[in-house]
C-alpha cells in the first residue's frame, strides 16, 4: 500500500509543477511524468495490458506535444489568471475533496459481504486494489473468468472480453478514433498546405 501513496504523491507534485511553471518544456516533461506514474500504478495493480498501452501512448503523446508547441519557439507562457476562473476551480476541488474523504473510509471485503446480506446496495467502497466484483459474485465478470477460455479459446482474458464478449464497444471505440483522426488530418493538411505555399 505504501507504493501507491508514494506514486500518488509523485503524480500530484508533477501535476502542480506542470500547472505552475512558466517554461513550456518543463510543463511538457511533467505531463510525461504523470503518465509514467500512472503506468507504474497500473503495473502494481496487476493490469499489464493497460500498463503497456499507457506507457506507449504517453511517450507518443509527449512527442506530439513537443512537436506542436516547443518547435514553434513558444517557450514561455505569459499572462495573468482570471479571478472568476480561480474561484470556480477552488470550489470544484473542495467538493471533490469532500467526496474523497467520504470514499477513504474503506472496509475489507468480508465485512462488505456481510453488510450486503442485510441491505443489497453498497454502503462504502472496499480497500484500494480489490476487484470490485469480488464483493458481488453474481456479476457477469465471474462468467468471463470461469468460462472465458472454453467459450473463446483465447488465453488472454482481456482480449477475449474486448474482442469477443464486448466486441461492439470496441467497434464504437475504433469508429471514434477513425473519425477523430480524419477530422484532425483534414484541418491540419489544409493549414500546412497554406503554410508551405506561403513559404515558397
Amino acid at each position, binding site marked *: 500500500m505504501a507504493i501507491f501513496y508514494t506514486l500518488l504523491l509523485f503524480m500530484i507534485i508533477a501535476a502542480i509543477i506542470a500547472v505552475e511553471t512558466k517554461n513550456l518544456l518543463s510543463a511538457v516533461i511533467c505531463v510525461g511524468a504523470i503518465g509514467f506514474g500512472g503506468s507504474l500504478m497500473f503495473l502494481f495493480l496487476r493490469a*499489464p*495490458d493497460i500498463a*503497456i*498501452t499507457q506507457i*506507449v*501512448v504517453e*511517450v*507518443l503523446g509527449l*512527442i*506530439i506535444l513537443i*512537436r*506542436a508547441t516547443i*518547435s*514553434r*519557439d513558444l517557450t514561455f507562457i505569459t499572462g495573468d489568471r482570471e479571478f472568476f476562473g480561480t474561484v470556480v476551480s477552488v470550489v470544484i476541488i473542495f467538493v471533490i475533496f469532500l467526496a474523497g474523504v467520504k470514499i477513504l473510509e474503506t472496509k475489507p471485503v468480508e465485512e462488505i459481504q456481510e453488510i450486503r446480506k442485510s441491505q443489497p446496495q453498497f454502503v462504502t467502497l472496499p480497500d484500494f486494489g480489490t476487484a470490485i466484483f469480488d464483493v458481488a459474485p453474481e456479476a457477469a465478470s465471474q462468467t468471463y473468468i470461469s468460462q472465458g*477460455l472454453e467459450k*473463446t*479459446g*483465447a*488465453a*488472454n482474458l*482481456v*482480449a*477475449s472480453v*474486448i*474482442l*469477443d464478449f464486448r*466486441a*461492439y464497444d*470496441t*467497434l464504437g471505440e*475504433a*469508429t471514434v*478514433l*477513425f473519425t477523430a*483522426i480524419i477530422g*484532425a*488530418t483534414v484541418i*491540419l*493538411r489544409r*493549414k*500546412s498546405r497554406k*503554410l*508551405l505555399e*506561403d*513559404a515558397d
Partner: protein
Amino acid sequence: MAEKEKNSNGVKGMTVIVKTISSWVKVLIFLFGIYIILFGHLTPGGGFAGGVIVAGSYVLLMLAFGREFVEENLSLPVASRLDCLGAFLFALIAILGLALGGSFFVNFLYQKYLPGEALNLISAGTIPLSNIAIGLKVAASLFLVIFTLSICCKDFKPGTPVNGKE
C-alpha cells in the same frame, strides 16, 4: 556556416551518430510492435498498444532523418489508404460474423470452422484477425497525425516573424 553549426532537429534530421543508431533500432521496434499485435490473444498487449509501437518506429525515422526521407518511404496518400483498409477489415469481420454465424460480430471461426487448440498461435477464432486490423488502423492513424503536425512547424530562427502569427 551558421546553418551547419545550428544542428537543427526540425525537418532536416540529426547528426550522423543518431542516424546510424536509429537505422538499426527502428527495425527492432517495428518487429516488436508486430509481435505485440500478433500475440495479443496469448500475452498482454493487443491491437492498440502494438499499433502505437509500430507508429513509434516511423516517428523515430522521421525525427532522425527528416521529413522528406519518410515521405518517399511512406507517403501521405498511402498511409491514409492503409488507415481506411484497417477500419474496413474490422467492419468486414463483423459483417462476416452476421453472414456466416448468425449474429453480428459472433466469433464464427472459433465456433464453426477453425477451433484450434488453446495456447497456440492459431486459436481463438477471429480475435487475432481483429487484432491485426486494429493494429494496422492505429499505426496508420498516429503516423498521419504526427506527420501532418510536423509540416506545420517550420525551422525557426528566433526573431524573424512567421506569416503574421506570434
